[in-house]
């Protein structure tokens, strides 16, 4: 005991702070003032909540999330899961969430493809093409998304009826009842196409992860792993007797049968989001590629690399460092802006939450669900993209 005390007194340098000191150091100066400020905010919040509960009691609504198991007496225009009037509110909200996720994911994917294409087209030395891209971007960027959605919606309604509709490329029908596109489905198997794709993706990610753990993840082994995952799924499907069936929409009688029908609302929302955000992503891509100095191109040419190699090995890794964080926030904005669906009648999460709040009067709970869901989506998406961003940033700075 005494030895230890002696030992401690002769230890040179400052001692480590204890937990209390750490907390105090983190809390910083002006401790009581900060406490008072936070207390005022908390009190304000408490008063608001108290008032809301009071109002709810006065109009006879029981606070809490019990209403979720009550039956929702409204129809949902389109839903990924089966929904009928009379099902629970929880199911209605889930169906809205799936619609939001569907349009956001598809929107991010298509906007990225279109945006990269437009961004590269804008860098073209051809004056006509780059001028056209310039105007496209200026017009889309400088008008409100809601206006564009209204425009696409009125366009979708003005399309000809299915009987008069003519097919684009022989397979895509643009009609007043929505857009009909060819579809692929699995028939005869134990599960559908979505499940098959999901299991392939999970398998591929697992294989890549194992390779990475063994520190043998290269471009080639990665490609082999992904091919293997696809081959395994296809083999499993084939053995279980499933056959992919491609279905083309075709006119029969007064309507179009077959294929996949996108409702006018969904088509308008998706088009609006994709067009608006492809313009934003195009700008980001242009800025990213232009941020790589001309000297880099010249040096790479002097080393004898050809154009494709220069872009792949020199320009893209550096441009991605600029592009990735900006694209991330575009994706987040797209997900949030998909909530404008409520204005054109697509049953997304916000629209269902709104209906729920109006029919049950549980507006506070409904909005808590809404805000909580969007926060979760946003935080997980930004965590995912941040992980990718560190990879890109590291690759750019260390290798």
């Amino acid at each position, binding site marked *: 005991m005494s030895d230890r005390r002696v030992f401690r007194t002769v230890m040179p340098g400052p001692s480590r702070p204890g937990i209390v000191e750490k907390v105090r150091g983190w809390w910083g100066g002006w401790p009581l003032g900060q406490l008072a400020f936070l207390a005022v905010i908390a009190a304000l919040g408490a008063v608001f909540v108290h008032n809301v509960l009071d109002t709810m009691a006065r109009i006879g609504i029981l606070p809490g999330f019990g209403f979720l198991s009550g039956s929702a007496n409204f129809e949902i225009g389109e839903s990924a899961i089966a929904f009928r009037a009379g099902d629970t509110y929880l199911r209605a909200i889930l169906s809205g969430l799936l619609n939001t996720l569907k349009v956001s994911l598809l929107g991010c994917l298509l906007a990225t493809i279109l945006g990269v294409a437009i961004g590269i087209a804008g860098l073209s030395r051809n004056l006509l093409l780059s001028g056209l891209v310039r105007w496209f971007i200026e017009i889309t960027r*400088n008008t409100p998304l809601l206006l564009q959605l209204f425009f696409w919606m009125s366009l979708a309604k003005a399309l000809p009826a299915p009987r008069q509709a003519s097919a684009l490329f022989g397979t895509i029908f643009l009609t007043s009842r929505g857009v009909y596109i060819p579809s692929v489905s699995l028939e005869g198997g134990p599960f559908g196409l979505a499940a098959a794709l999901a299991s392939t993706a999970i398998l591929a990610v697992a294989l890549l992860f194992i390779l990475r753990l063994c520190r043998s993840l290269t471009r080639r082994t990665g490609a082999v792993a992904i091919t293997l995952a696809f081959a395994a799924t296809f083999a499993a499907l084939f053995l279980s007797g499933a056959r992919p069936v491609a279905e083309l929409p075709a006119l029969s009688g007064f309507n179009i049968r077959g294929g996949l029908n996108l409702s006018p609302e969904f088509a308008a929302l998706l088009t609006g989001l994709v067009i608006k955000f492809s313009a934003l992503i195009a700008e980001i891509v242009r800025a990213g590629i232009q941020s790589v100095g001309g000297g880099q191109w010249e040096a790479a040419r002097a080393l004898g690399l050809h154009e494709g190699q220069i872009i792949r090995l020199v320009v893209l890794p550096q441009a991605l460092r600029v592009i990735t964080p900006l694209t991330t926030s575009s994706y987040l904005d797209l997900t949030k802006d998909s909530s404008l669906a409520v204005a054109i009648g697509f049953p997304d999460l916000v629209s269902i939450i709104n209906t729920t709040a109006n029919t049950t009067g549980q507006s506070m709970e409904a909005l808590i669900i809404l805000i909580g869901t969007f926060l979760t989506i946003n935080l997980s998406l930004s965590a995912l993209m941040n992980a990718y961003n560190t990879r890109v940033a590291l690759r750019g700075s260390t290798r």
Partner: protein
Amino acid sequence: MTAATRTLATLRTGLFGTRTNTLVTAATLLLLSQILPPLFRWAVLDATFTGNAEACTRAGACWSFVAAKLRFILFAFYPPDLQWRPVLVILLLAAILTASAVPRFWGRPLLFAWPLTILACWLLMQGAFTSTPIPSNQWGGLPVTLFVWAVCFAAATPIAVLLALARRSTLGGLRTFSVLYIELMRGTPMVGILYVAMLILPMALPDGLSFDKMLRAIVMVTLFWAAYIAEVIRAGLQALPAGQTEAATALGLGFWRTQQLIVLPQAFRIVIPGLVNLAIGFLLATSLLAVIGIFDLLNAARASAADPQWLGFYNEAYIVVAVVYFAICFGASRYSRWLERRLAAGRRL
């Protein structure tokens, strides 16, 4: 070489310089030939320029609708005999925005002019000094869009400065609060915030204290935008070398004096182009007020095409408001670029 031949030479290499280039030009022309003629036919050849709704039976646009409903699109349900008031509001806001755009005017007088202008606009819109006050549900059109935008941006900026300072400070409690607040607001869609203004705020306020929908929306949107502005300002604070604050402290300036005299003026100079871009996005976002039934410019345009006499000319109405939004935002983005160059030149000196 004269200017004309030089332009011609640029055009020739720009359009037909190489074989690929010629191909790209041809493909682009093909695309344009698919888009432009039908558009031209709709907007000009088949369009109706005079007469009433019955005259608009042709396949093209009905521009006489715009002529008839322009007043409604710009001012919505505001009493027509008091129309000089919203016109004056637009002029006042345009004046203060123009003044704010000139770097020579940046200073204390402008800081005082802003609240005064907003107050004047509020009084004008609400019909002060007339026998009958005009309730905010009769306000509409362009003045509402501009007014909500200006008020929310102006009110959000001071809050944003405090949030940004708190997020960068060494005070753990305030920093945590600021981070949570900013992330919560930035993670929520604006529609959700507007629903809070419409559904929760009336319930959350004590009995007897209720204010109208427009004001509630303004309060919530201000709190919402403050988070976004705070992030932009924080970028400016981070770009400032630590030596500036240290030097100010060494000179014996306190925290607030340091921020006021040293840090914020420099940080703002860095982020003003970013703030202008943010303001453009916000102007476009004010169109979301339509979701909670406020008659901003876009909603007024939609309502104008719902008039039984002129039913269904939505595309014409949308084009008119698109032109208005485009004119303001395109001008602002050009200004932002000019300012960026000018400020960058100033820093190099």
